[in-house]
């Protein structure tokens, strides 16, 4: 194929892309509506698949089998964490108008300009080989197509006929046109995004077309392809029995790709900066991995086909082109070339755009602003300066890439060069992830981590890459620095058996993470850093930043400052929008409060980076010096409020529990109080009744000395009886209070024979029963029946019960039974009468004090109502139980159950002489 046709096709293709981008930026017709779709967003993410995927992946697959895949598995895994990781990055970047990876790191660690500049410089150094790689791939493809096929050595051609040079020039122009057409605060490049998306679509279609052609055009389907591959032992060894080879390098590459998907400047550009709507991410989360899967589906078949059909000395990175050519389909080869061109072009354009932004905002502008003699502060319009700085950076980066390629890259395969860049940018991953999720990550730590990681990278990958191409000599690799074996760059400290990339990944990450972690632990964060950390971790609201720096300024000052970088119209429009949301009239407001200042700073940050914006705004605002103490106070407020909340909650729970307890106690107290009142009233009543009758009869006797003797004796007898009753009552009250005061322990603990108690009590009550004309029968089934307790008290209980039986049994035909028997471990004492009985509902209450059954108004009280109460307490003190049942004849049965004593020997038993 002639060279001129090839050039014409390539240029026409690029022009087509440019036309699409131009239409989008013009905002005309349907094309411009594409910008806001999640599909375009996803496809633009696919800028990840550079020519490296298109040509290098196939090349690698043909050499070592499937281990090109981790490069695409890593991003898939990263997207598994997307809702947490990427979303947070998106949100923070939008809130702070962060426009590059350097900005992100700088902003997280206290808006540090130095850190941002360091990141930028490392990125440029790290990515130059990567850009060189794209150029190399274009030039190799170009020469392969124009010269038939075979090993290509672009470096041997004269410069002017080198396709890579022209590619570099065209792509630089392309990047300048897309990436730095104008200055806008959000750094959106919708035209570029749509063009990149289109290229992504084309490269997928082209690679799939070639894959299908290989599968069905050159072979009878993929099964045929694989079975033919199996017959060649050489290939089989690589593709089918390789698994044992995948060890650390597979893991290292997965990790590198995982980091690259958010650390590569071009990925950050399309994923974060160009993102217009957070919801697009939802779809991209699975659509982008799907794209990666689709584009890799045919890589292995193509690689195998290449191995089968092409001579062994074919440049493996050219398989995609060589296969169709060898099969006699130059038009397919052209398609393959355009696919590779798409991949390279989009990568280079986005990468240089992102790099130019970083270099301009984080290195050049801060430096220029510091140089007083330039007088930049007083220039009315700096937008043109900004644009030209960026364009210049693009040219420089591209030139560096080109010269690196011509000098160095020839002996390397595409994938190796690309991986070198991956390791370089992976140095930012600890700082970014740490910054997003670890509050303690400090600026010093980030500085230390990135620097050490980069130095190790420089030593273990970059320098050897020069020396391998002859600049430093093989000595260095073979014997280490100064001939010290331990310092061999590919086997540092004797670590051998790993390939250079895995080896370097291990050492850089070890140094980087170690330094980052330990320095962060031991170096205190400055207040500004702590404030930023809180913001990045979502503890503090981004707008709370206004509270940390109470800055005031005049709106016109801010306006003119912003207008110099952004252009007056855009600045005015942006401020008008902001003023509307705050309900301020943009025309009249003069004094800018802290929030307004913050708004302007962020607006500027979008154009010239956070660090520069801070310096610039700082030059015109009046900053209230906010003491460290106060800063800390504001900062810690949130956490203190949370803590206080938690404590309050705990306290209220404790209070609630206490309240419940108190309520219960109160209820008990109220019952007791009522009982006490009842008691007092009853005692009052019980004492008054006998007193009143004694008094009444005494007065009658006093006032009527001439009463007949009979009557007088009668009255005196009543007085005596009532006095006796009073005495008895008082005795019983004393008894009760004594029992209640002693608590649950019996007053005396001795072995007591209940049978003796029964006999004794019955003898004592003999007279009472005789007077009441009630028969008393006694049944003793257990004799002796020992319990532990107080003899006198137990006698009192039996006498009480017998007294009641005598009282309530009908005189004349009354029958009472006192029985004692054994019931298992217990002894049961029962007193049965044939009186009126006790109603079921009253059976509990008879044991309460002064509880007298029946109508107390009409019936003459037949006792103080304390007997049963006293009995119940005595029994309780003995650990027993007293209750009442109904007897068969309708009377009441009082039963007492006490625990039998184990020892039957009445050793300590007191022998009581029955009284009376």
């Amino acid at each position, binding site marked *: 194929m002639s060279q001129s046709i090839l050039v014409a096709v390539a240029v026409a293709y690029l022009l087509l892309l440019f036309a699409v981008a131009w239409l989008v930026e013009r905002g005309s017709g349907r094309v411009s509506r594409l910008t806001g779709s999640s599909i375009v967003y996803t496809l633009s993410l696919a800028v990840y698949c550079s020519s490296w995927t298109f040509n290098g992946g196939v090349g690698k697959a043909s050499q070592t089998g499937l281990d090109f895949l*981790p490069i695409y598995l890593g991003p898939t895994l990263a997207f598994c964490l997307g809702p947490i990781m990427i979303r947070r990055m998106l949100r923070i970047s939008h*809130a702070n108008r962060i426009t590059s990876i350097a900005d992100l790191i700088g902003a997280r660690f206290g808006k540090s300009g130095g850190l941002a500049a360091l990141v930028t410089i490392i990125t440029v150094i790290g990515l130059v080989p990567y850009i060189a790689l794209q150029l190399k791939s274009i030039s190799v493809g170009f020469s392969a197509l124009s010269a038939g096929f075979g090993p290509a050595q672009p470096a041997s051609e004269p410069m002017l006929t080198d396709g890579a040079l022209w590619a570099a020039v065209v792509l630089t122009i392309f990047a300048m046109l897309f990436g730095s057409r104008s200055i806008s605060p959000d750094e959106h490049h919708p035209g570029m995004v749509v063009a990149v998306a289109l290229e992504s679509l084309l490269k997928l279609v082209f690679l799939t077309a070639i894959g299908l052609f290989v599968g069905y055009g050159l072979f009878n389907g993929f099964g045929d392809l694989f*079975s033919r591959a199996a017959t060649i032992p050489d290939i089989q060894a690589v593709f*089918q029995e390789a698994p044992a080879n995948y060890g650390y390098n597979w893991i290292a590459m997965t990790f590198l790709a995982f980091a690259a998907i958010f650390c590569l400047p071009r990925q950050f550009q399309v994923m974060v900066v160009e993102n217009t709507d957070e919801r697009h991410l939802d779809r991209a989360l699975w659509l982008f991995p799907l794209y990666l899967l689709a584009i890799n589906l045919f890589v292995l078949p193509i690689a195998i086909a290449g191995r089968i059909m092409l001579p062994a000395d074919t440049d493996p990175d050219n398989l995609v082109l060589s296969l169709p050519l060898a099969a006699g389909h130059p038009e397919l080869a052209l398609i393959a070339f355009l696919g590779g061109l798409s991949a390279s072009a989009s990568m280079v354009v986005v990468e240089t755009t992102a790099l130019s932004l970083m270099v301009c905002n984080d290195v050049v502008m801060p430096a220029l602003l510091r140089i007083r003699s330039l007088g930049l502060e007083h220039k009315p319009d700096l937008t043109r300066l900004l644009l030209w700085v960026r364009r210049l950076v693009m040219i420089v980066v591209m030139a560096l890439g080109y010269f690196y390629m011509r000098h160095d890259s020839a002996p390397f395969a595409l994938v190796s060069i690309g991986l070198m860049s991956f390791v370089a940018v992976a140095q930012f991953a600890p700082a970014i992830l740490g910054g997003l999720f670890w509050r303690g990550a400090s600026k010093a730590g980030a500085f230390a981590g990135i620097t050490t990681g980069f130095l190790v990278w420089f030593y273990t990958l970059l320098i050897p890459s020069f020396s391998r191409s002859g600049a430093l000599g093989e000595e260095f690799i073979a014997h280490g620095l100064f001939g010290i074996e331990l310092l061999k760059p590919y086997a540092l400290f004797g670590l051998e058996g790993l390939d250079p990339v895995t080896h370097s990944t291990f050492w850089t990450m070890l140094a980087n993470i170690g330094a980052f972690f330990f320095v962060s632990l031991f170096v205190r964060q400055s207040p500004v850093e702590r404030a930023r950390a809180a913001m990045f971790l979502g503890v503090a609201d981004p707008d709370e930043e206004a509270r940390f720096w109470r800055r005031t300024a005049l709106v016109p000052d801010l306006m003119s400052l912003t207008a110099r970088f952004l252009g007056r119209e855009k600045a005015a429009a942006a401020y008008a929008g902001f003023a509307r949301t705050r309900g301020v009239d943009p025309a009249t407001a003069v004094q800018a409060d802290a929030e307004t200042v913050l708004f302007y700073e962020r607006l500027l940050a979008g154009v010239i980076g956070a660090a520069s914006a801070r310096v610039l705004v700082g030059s015109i605002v009046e900053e209230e010096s906010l003491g460290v103490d106060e800063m800390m106070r504001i900062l810690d407020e949130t956490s203190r409020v949370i803590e206080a909340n938690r404590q309050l909650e705990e306290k209220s729970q404790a209070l609630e529990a206490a309240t419940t307890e108190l309520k219960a106690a109160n209820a008990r107290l109220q019952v007791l109080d009522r009982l006490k009142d009842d008691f007092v009233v009853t005692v009052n009543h019980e004492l008054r009744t006998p007193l009143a009758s004694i008094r009444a009869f005494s007065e009658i006797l006093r006032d009527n000395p001439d009463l007949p003797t009979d009557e007088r004796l009668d009255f005196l007898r009543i007085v005596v009886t009532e006095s006796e009753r009073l005495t008895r009552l008082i005795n019983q009250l004393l008894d009760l209070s004594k029992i209640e005061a002693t608590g649950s322990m019996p007053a005396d603990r001795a072995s007591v024979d209940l049978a003796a108690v029964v006999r004794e009590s019955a003898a004592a009550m003999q007279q009472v029963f005789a007077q009441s004309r009630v028969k008393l029968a006694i049944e003793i089934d257990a004799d002796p029946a020992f319990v532990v307790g107080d003899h006198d008290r137990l006698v009192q209980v039996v006498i009480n019960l017998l007294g009641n039986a005598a009282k309530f049994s009908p005189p004349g035909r009354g029958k009472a039974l006192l029985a004692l028997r054994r019931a298992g471990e217990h002894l049961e004492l029962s007193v049965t009468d044939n009186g009126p009985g006790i109603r079921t509902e009253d059976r509990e209450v008879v044991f309460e004090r002064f509880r007298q059954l029946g109508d107390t108004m009409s019936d003459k009280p037949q006792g103080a109502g304390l007997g049963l109460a006293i009995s119940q307490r005595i029994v309780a003190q003995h650990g027993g139980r007293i209750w009442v049942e109904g007897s068969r004849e309708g009377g009441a049965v009082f039963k007492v159950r006490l625990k039998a004593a184990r020892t039957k020997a009445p050793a300590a038993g007191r022998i009581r002489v029955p009284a009376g």
Partner: protein
Amino acid sequence: MVGLFAAGTILLNPPILNLVGGTLFGWPALYLYLFVVWGLLIAVIGLISESSPGQANERDKDSASR
């Protein structure tokens, strides 16, 4: 999603990866294994992220109110 990440990391890395070898239906088994696991992983991500748009909407409101 974190669980998915862990599962994917384990399944798509050595040493689990090295358990798969030989051929299946005349295709390299490892090739099939990788793409099937990968595809499944993507399907699960898709199911999760598409079925819980409420989460995203809520967050949108959240960021809009700022």
